[in-house]
């Protein structure tokens, strides 16, 4: 029998698949889905046609007017009655609807990008910080900052009532002191008593120079402030305050708030963008926060903390990359929503100002002619809205499937 000597083996791993990056993998899954490809195609068509039309196909809405061509149905070849070709027909001012639909894309694109940009920037930051500090203890400096800022904001009211601006800094100082002497009677009721009295005293004394009633009210406010500052306010406090604010904004359903904001800002596409952007902030804040909450419970965050990385670095180096998937999906779908909301505003006459070509406004302009049979003036701008929105939604849907490893089969 041949002798067998166990040889030192090198691992040949002849059956291991080639390495693929996370994003490469996601991209491969994305383009393998029919619906996602359709979405990409629609979005690309929409973006390219809008951009090319804006830069290479001149259009001056203010000069576009020809009553002789008023409300002509779509034609594919020129005839005697209508000497020019209008594949989508013309509207009540004899304007070519095809041209306006293509140019309208530019406005929708702008609204989408600006509005989502506003929502994403503010909502993302709020969600990132409130989610992070919800679970992670603040450092000493951060606590100084939080308490100081809380004191400062509370102090504004006292300072205003007593007309003594320096009171702001008194309460800010009290906040910093509360953070600095963190261990002072920690967890005991006495701590609250001491800080409440301290708050009342430092506010009442200067206020006495104004009047006794003023001092009374200010003192009461100082008492409340002191008591609040004696609490171990952690990141959770900041997170709670932020989420309550977001809840309030969210209590106004859909774009009702956007309508209200535009109603007060006055009509105009730019104001519409801002309004839609503001309304979207809580959506992104909540989404980001819940994604961050999930991430901060992962071991690698603990690992980063244990090697002493600064919080800012953890937030941007470790947390942010790991919450990108849901944010990317939401952003794509958010573009769809923003386009839809802008069209709704335009339809109500609160968005783009005529004669600016904007799909919603075009619908709002033309729907009264529907009963006289001018269906083309309503059909085509509406289809444009629907398809561009559908394109972003399909893409977002595909992105969700591609980026969410949970659904892998």
């Amino acid at each position, binding site marked *: 029998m041949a002798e067998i000597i166990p040889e030192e083996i090198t691992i040949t791993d002849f059956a291991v698949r080639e390495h693929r990056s996370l994003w490469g993998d996601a991209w491969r899954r994305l383009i393998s889905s029919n*619906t996602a490809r359709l979405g990409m195609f629609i979005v690309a068509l929409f973006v390219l046609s809008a951009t090319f039309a804006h830069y290479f196909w001149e259009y001056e809405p203010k000069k576009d007017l020809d009553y002789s061509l008023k409300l002509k149905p779509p034609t594919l070849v020129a005839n005697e009655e209508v000497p020019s070709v209008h594949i989508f027909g013309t509207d009540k001012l004899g304007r070519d609807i095809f041209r306006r639909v293509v140019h309208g894309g530019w406005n929708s694109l702008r609204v989408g990008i600006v509005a989502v940009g506003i929502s994403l920037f503010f909502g993302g930051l709020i969600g990132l910080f409130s989610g992070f500090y919800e679970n992670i203890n603040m450092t000493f400096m951060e606590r100084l900052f939080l308490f100081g800022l809380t004191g400062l904001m509370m102090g504004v009211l006292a300072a*205003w*009532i007593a*007309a003594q601006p320096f009171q702001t800094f008194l309460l800010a100082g009290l906040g910093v002191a509360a953070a600095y002497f963190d261990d002072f009677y920690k967890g005991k009721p006495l701590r609250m008593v001491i800080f409440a009295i301290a708050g009342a005293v430092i506010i009442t004394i200067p206020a006495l120079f*104004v*009047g*006794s*009633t*003023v001092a*009374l*009210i200010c003192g009461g406010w100082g008492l409340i402030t002191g008591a609040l500052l004696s609490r171990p306010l952690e990141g959770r406090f900041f997170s709670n305050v932020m989420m*309550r*604010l977001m*809840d*309030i*904004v969210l*209590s*106004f*359903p*859909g*774009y*009702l708030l956007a*309508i*209200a904001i535009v*109603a*007060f800002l006055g009509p105009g596409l730019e104001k519409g963008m801002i309004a839609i952007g503001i309304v979207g902030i809580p959506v992104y804040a909540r989404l980001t926060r819940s994604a961050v909450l999930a991430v901060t419970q992962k071991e690698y965050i603990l690992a980063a903390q244990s090697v002493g990385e600064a919080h800012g670095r953890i937030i941007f180096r470790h947390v942010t990359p790991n919450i990108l998937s849901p944010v990317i999906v939401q952003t794509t779908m958010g573009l*769809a929503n923003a386009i*839809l909301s802008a*069209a*709704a505003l335009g*339809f*109500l*006459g*609160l968005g783009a100002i005529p004669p600016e070509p904007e799909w*919603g406004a075009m*619908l709002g302009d033309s*729907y009264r002619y*529907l*009963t006289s*049979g001018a*269906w083309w003036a*309503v*059909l085509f*701008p*509406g289809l444009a*809205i*629907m398809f561009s*929105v*559908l394109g972003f*939604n*399909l893409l977002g*849907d595909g992105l969700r499937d591609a980026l969410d490893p949970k*659904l892998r089969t």
Partner: protein
Amino acid sequence: MSRYIIRRIFSVIPTLIGVTFVIFMFQRLIPGDPAIAMLGEHATDESVERLREQFGLNRPLFLDRDALAEGDINGFFDSQYIRYMNRLFKLDMGESIHRRIPVTETLALRFPATIELSLLSMFIAIIIGIPVGIVSAAKRNTAIDGISMVGSLVGVSMPIFWLGLMEIMLFAVMLQWLPAGGRFSTGIEIKSFTNLYLVDSLLTGNLEGFKDAFQHIILPAIALATIPMGIIARMTRSSMLDVLQEDYVRTARAKGLGQSLVLFRHALKNAALPVVTIIGLQMGTLLAGAVLTETIFSWPGIGRWVYDAILGRDYPIVQGGTLVIALVFVGVNFLVDIAYALLDPRIRYD
């Protein structure tokens, strides 16, 4: 359970205060003097002053520090905001600037119209959306699944004002099957207690009235239902898919349960949680969407009323209407939280 409800009630209160605050601020931040808006450009200074006095517009917004400096603590708190809140507690929302009718009076007439439309739309969205979602999940990756999911995505992407217009064109103008707007035809009488015409006509046995009211409501209801329908179907599907790969579904199958019991008993109750949440949130879409649908279908609800008021700068109406919509929305989501606890013992026993 009761502790859970009480805790939820307390967490709603700050939100409600915030909502009233935002609405109050909206009215006060707009450019222009409401008193002049009420009396017109040519009003005399005295009459403007009198009106300002009458409506408390001469008071400070939140707190009167000058009164305090003079030692008047009551005067300190006597501000526009406090008066506004006081009136709200007495259900007084002021009166329309143009029409001089109390806002609450018009609200009582128009609010049921919006609620009727929204509830019917939600009903349509649920009875179609949930089964479609369940079937899609059960037949995952088949043609049925693909068609219904792309279909529901089209629903989600639908500009409802456009869909409404297309409906009018097809069913009212071209086919002439259904009316293009309003709540009922002239000549039809519906005795009304609640202003919910569908309910009232049924209660009084007025079948002709019911038919007419239904013919009027169905087009706007379908237009309004498309977006929630799509969203509910998609949420039901993804939630069911999540649940169907849970271990306890495998356990249920291992016991020998058939597909329908597994789907409808073991999976659906678990999958219902996110669906209920999304239904609550979609109530908001419906209430806001009412502004659009009601405009197109001349539906006399609060959506169109608020929209007209925005254009006419009739602020008490804007304020009252927005507040009511926001309150309904907050209320619905409160109910959703309660439903959550009923569905999930882990929350109930928390």
